[in-house]
């Protein structure tokens, strides 16, 4: 492995053009990840035709690098402005943004930089060591029934928002989704043709996070209670981060596990990482109010998923998500098929990609730490100048996805809803969880049920499903018991 890695590194850094592509990927991924409204997928889609003129290894390497750094890029705007660059950065905003409001933006961004790098590097190392056996295990043992069970088990869905929060979110998630049936069917029946395609989750997330935040701050401005977030350049100390080593390790494992699941990747990884951090924390109430462990967990987990997501792609030719699907496009443009044969036919390609992912994650650390101090100064911009910029970026981001003005309207409507819900003490993270995990849950439930022919016993005969469902119910009942006993306690 070490020899192959060194050979891959030499191939990567031995050619100035390849180095140029690598640097372009690192910076492009970070920028597109950080700009709300566009994402690493936008960049990848723009670049796809150009990869035809590159060597296959250069093309795949470019996309892999964008994938690594783009996953990190969205954390910055999530922390500073409550605008997650991508759904996988949403849990980062839960605690990152409250930290910014408390004047701890430097600590939050520093933790995100470091933990993204740790998660990504560790994932790249495991990927190098065990791609083939892990891919075979994941594909033969994990299918839609297990993924639904995993979503059901997610502690955040059950424990955290005892009553209204999460379950309300689940409802919102179901109603707001462009997934299966409800909105599409009701849209047709009430004559709103635009709703026939359902409601996309990007406008809803932008609305609940970015727009509602602007409204909350605007209200404070209107009544003269607005306080600008304090700029802080204090990075977390080594000791501070060391005290969260278990959270980092746990999130690495959770992120890696979620990453190798087909079709799931970094989004579920980030939510699971965050959820497990809350589950094992002694101070659960501090989450959502600026607990650095929330940032650490979600950023470690989502970057740990990037390397893992490459495993089913490279070893079996199965893309796990949109970004890896685009990578299949790069392979096909060069008459190659990703899968087991690539390891034998094009080992150079594989090891250049592995090495590039390793170095891309390392570069998050160096470039991240250098750029952070500059980016943090964005907080100095007065709110009245920042707000229209954020609203417009969110509007464009919502519009671009499907080219519908309706999506912009939906974004502002969900923004107003989010504002009113927050004013009433409801949990926005709960709603966002519902929106994102509701979709994954419903899709996999439907597919899983078809796979087991609607036989619950057959479903539960799958050991992983059984284990997760039992654990989920135990968590659910414990949560309900705790909530009821708290409510009844005088």
């Amino acid at each position, binding site marked *: 492995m070490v020899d192959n890695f060194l050979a891959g590194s030499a191939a990567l850094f031995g050619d100035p053009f390849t180095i140029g592509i690598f640097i372009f990927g690192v910076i492009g991924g970070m920028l597109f990840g950080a700009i709300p409204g*566009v994402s690493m997928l936008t960049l990848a889609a723009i670049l796809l035709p150009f990869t035809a003129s590159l060597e296959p290894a250069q093309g795949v390497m470019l996309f892999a690098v964008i994938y690594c750094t783009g996953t990190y890029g969205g954390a910055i705007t999530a922390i500073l402005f409550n605008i997650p660059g991508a759904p996988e950065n949403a849990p980062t905003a839960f605690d990152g943004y409250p930290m910014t409001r408390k004047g701890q933006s430097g600590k939050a961004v520093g933790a995100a930089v470091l933990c993204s790098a740790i998660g990504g590097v560790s994932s790249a190392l495991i990927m190098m060591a065990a791609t083939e056996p892990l891919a075979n295990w994941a594909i033969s043992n994990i299918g839609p029934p297990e993924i639904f069970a995993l979503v059901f088990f997610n502690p955040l869905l059950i424990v955290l928002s005892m009553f209204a*929060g999460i379950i309300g979110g689940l409802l919102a998630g179901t109603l707001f989704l462009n997934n299966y*049936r409800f909105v599409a069917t009701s849209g047709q029946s009430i004559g709103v043709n635009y709703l026939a395609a359902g409601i996309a989750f990007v406008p809803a997330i932008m609305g609940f996070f970015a727009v509602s935040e602007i*409204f909350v701050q605007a209200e404070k401005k209107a009544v003269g209670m607005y306080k600008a977030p304090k700029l802080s350049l204090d990075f977390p100390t080594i000791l501070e981060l060391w005290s969260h080593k278990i959270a980092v390790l746990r999130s690495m494992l959770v992120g890696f596990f979620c990453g190798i699941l087909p079709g799931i990747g970094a989004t579920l990884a980030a939510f699971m990482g965050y959820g497990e951090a809350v589950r094992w924390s002694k101070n659960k109430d501090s989450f959502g109010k600026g607990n650095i462990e929330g940032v650490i967990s979600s950023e470690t987990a989502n970057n740990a998923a990037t390397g893992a997501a490459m495993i089913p792609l490279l070893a079996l030719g199965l893309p796990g998500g949109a970004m890896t699907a685009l990578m299949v496009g790069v392979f096909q443009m060069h008459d190659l098929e990703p899968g087991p044969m690539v390891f034998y036919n094009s080992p150079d390609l594989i090891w250049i990609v592995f090495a590039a992912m390793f170095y891309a994650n390392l570069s998050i650390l160096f470039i991240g730490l250098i750029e952070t101090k500059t980016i943090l100064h964005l907080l100095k911009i007065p709110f009245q100048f920042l707000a*229209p*910029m954020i609203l417009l970026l969110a*509007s464009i981001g919502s519009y671009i996805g499907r080219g519908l003005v309706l999506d912009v309207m939906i974004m502002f409507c969900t923004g107003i809803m989010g504002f009113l819900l927050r004013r009433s003490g409801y949990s926005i993270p709960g709603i966002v969880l519902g929106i994102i995990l509701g979709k994954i849950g419903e899709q996999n439930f439907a597919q899983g049920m078809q796979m087991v022919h609607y036989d619950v016993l057959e479903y539960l005969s799958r050991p992983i499903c059984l284990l997760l469902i039992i654990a989920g119910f135990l968590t659910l009942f414990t949560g309900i018991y705790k*909530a009821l006993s708290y409510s009844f306690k005088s």
Partner: protein
Amino acid sequence: MVKNHQKHFVFSFEFNQEIEIYKFGATGWPRVILGLLLLVTLGNFLHLYKKGSEAQQGRVGISDIEEEITYDGIGSIKKLLAILSLPLIFSWSLKPVGFYSATPVFIALTIMLLGEKRIKWILGITLFIYLVLILLFMVILNAPLPQGNVSPFYDFSAFMLTLNTKLHQSLNF
């Protein structure tokens, strides 16, 4: 609230669609969620009855309510309503007026509503934000933004796009 959930639950039967490959149909999942929501709302009532408006233990992301907002007069309420309405009006105007014409007005009005009174700053920042967005999304990314369908706004959008094409041609982009 309970009544509302019941209504939605019943409403879901009116447009259910059978799906050949999926036994539970279009509304199976939403009905489960609505049923859960009903239970949860009852739980909320119980909490409200026992603990009043005290925050529920263990919920995340509720730090907002720790800060009590007090309105000192009708002026601030009007201001807030204007701030909430402006984006809706902007989004409604995108179809007839288009992004290129509606955006500068939206930026300037938002800055004003948020308390900026210096005209030079309002105009300068409006122009700056507009140019940044045009540069990023029109020139660099070639993103298809709403062009409007009412003259002269549509003509202005067409003019902007022609400029962009000429710029691309001159730069051999």
